[in-house]
């Protein structure tokens, strides 16, 4: 039975797996202790739960539990990782390399660093969303201390060649930070195989609760250190003070364990549905997939439907299907997606994009319903679109002098 509304905005957040909630419940109730309380059973139980979760989290990414610093989420981990390295390695240099398609949590952190006297190179990406490795290497200076490239993009799902990036970085003695928020739990991520020194990720993108995430900080080869951005009781080996969110951490651990066991079969099943969705929607005239189709997360598709506007399109079905668009109208900034623009897409195509994020809970019926709804809406809106009419008449829209406003 098809249940509406359908949720296909899983890059924004995922629903929690009921098994995660089940694991968390005791820690909301009688197991409420503070993990830092060393002298009574309540504290012991909490500490034990955190230790166990730390192992579950570490295992998913091939790390040692001691390398996991729990935070409030990926944004905090991005801040701690990048600012922490910038401050800790100030005597080595002040230059950071990142890319224009990074999440705002990275870009705005880098802008902050520029105000503090740091220098940042923002690499542009190729039309498929990938960075050019030669360009990356050429950007490395003697003062470069950190390369920050996301594992997978939140809007287009493009997976970056992290292993190749870290090989280049190591050659030059530069640390690698990666925001892996969208990748961990969806595709295999191994900090050792991938050569990652620091990595941010979060529970709520992998069927865990909101408000808890982690920063991975490498302990050997090389031993990486970050300066704390939050001062206080010296929790998390002095790198992140603040009473641990025990319940959230327990949920995060459980979510990681489930992903560890089910990621492979989930990805297989989900990518079949994603491919069906994409194949069917690409049958619509003038539809374009944004970003690499080859190097991509299995559950993501980003498609532009030329000559219809994204928000107008969403309105056709957003009572029944939850999706997001790169259209300016859906954001507070009134600018279309900077990620899509970085791919070289014209504003018109950026305005016409829809982002699909499937999940473990997505069903075939939901995909069939979505294909039909979107196809109907695109066709209906094109009947209403002056641009579509002009396109059909063979008018080159670029030759028209638009009264830009």
């Amino acid at each position, binding site marked *: 039975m098809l249940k509406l509304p359908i949720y296909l905005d899983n890059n924004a957040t995922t629903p929690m797996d009921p098994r995660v909630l089940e694991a968390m419940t005791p820690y909301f109730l009688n197991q409420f202790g503070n993990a830092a309380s060393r002298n009574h059973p309540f504290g012991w139980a909490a500490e034990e739960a955190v230790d166990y979760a730390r192992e579950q989290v570490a295992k998913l990414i091939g790390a040692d539990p001691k390398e996991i610093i729990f935070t409030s989420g990926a944004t905090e981990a991005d801040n701690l990782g990048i600012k922490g390295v910038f401050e800790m390695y100030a005597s080595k240099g002040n230059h950071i390399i990142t890319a224009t398609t990074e999440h705002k949590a990275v870009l705005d952190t880098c802008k902050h660093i520029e105000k503090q006297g740091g220098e940042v190179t923002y690499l542009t990406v190729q039309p498929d969303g990938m960075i050019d490795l030669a360009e990356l290497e050429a950007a490395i200076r003697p003062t470069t201390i950190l390369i920050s490239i996301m594992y997978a993009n939140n809007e287009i799902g493009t997976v970056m060649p992290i292993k190749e990036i870290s090989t280049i970085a190591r050659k030059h003695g530069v640390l690698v930070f990666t925001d892996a928020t969208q990748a961990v739990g969806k595709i295999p991520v191994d900090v050792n195989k991938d050569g990652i020194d620091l990595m941010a990720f979060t529970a709520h993108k992998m069927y865990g609760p909101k408000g808890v995430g982690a920063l991975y900080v490498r302990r050997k080869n090389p031993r990486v250190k970050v300066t704390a951005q939050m001062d206080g009781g010296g929790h998390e080996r002095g790198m992140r003070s603040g009473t641990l969110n025990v319940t959230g951490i327990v949920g995060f651990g459980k979510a990681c364990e489930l992903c560890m066991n089910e990621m492979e079969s989930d990805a297989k099943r989900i990518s079949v549905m994603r491919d069906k969705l994409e194949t069917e929607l690409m049958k619509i005239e003038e539809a374009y997939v944004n970003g690499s189709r080859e190097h991509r997360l299995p559950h993501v598709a980003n498609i532009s439907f030329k000559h219809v506007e994204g*928000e107008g399109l969403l*309105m056709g079905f957003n009572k029944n299907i939850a999706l997001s668009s790169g259209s300016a109208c859906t954001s507070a900034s009134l600018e*279309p997606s900077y990620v899509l623009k970085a791919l070289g897409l014209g504003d018109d195509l950026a305005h016409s994009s829809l982002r699909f994020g499937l999940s473990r809970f997505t069903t075939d019926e939901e995909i069939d319903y979505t294909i039909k709804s979107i196809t109907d809406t695109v066709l209906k809106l094109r009947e209403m679109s002056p641009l579509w009419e002009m396109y059909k008449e063979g008018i080159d829209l670029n030759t028209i002098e638009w009264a830009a406003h």
Partner: protein
Amino acid sequence: MAYSEKVIDHYQNPKNVGTLDKASKNVGTGLVGAPECGDVMRLQIEVNSETGMITDAKFKTFGCGSAIASSSLATEWLKGKSVDEALKIDNMTIVEELNLPPVKIHCSVLAEDAIKAAINDYREKNGMEKIKFEESVIH
């Protein structure tokens, strides 16, 4: 952001979607907005040159639901009005009628601009001088 019922109704059942013969002397066409900005409105009026009354109005819009609703509503209001009356349609009346939130006011401005552009096109075709309008400011 929730849409008003009137916006939803115009979006779902748009009035007067279509195309008039833009080569006809009785038809005025206004094309405003730009694809880069995420909205383009084309509004057309057909005028009885003897009575100066607008006998038909059609639109096509590329844009969000509020832009579609604003142009749909504009065509409804245009039909049966004289050209002079049509010039008095103010964007704020569209805002009030559709309950547009502040971020969508530009949709109503676009509709007002489209009406004026269509009227000027009609005037020009019929040997009348174009009316100079003050630049709309809300963009």
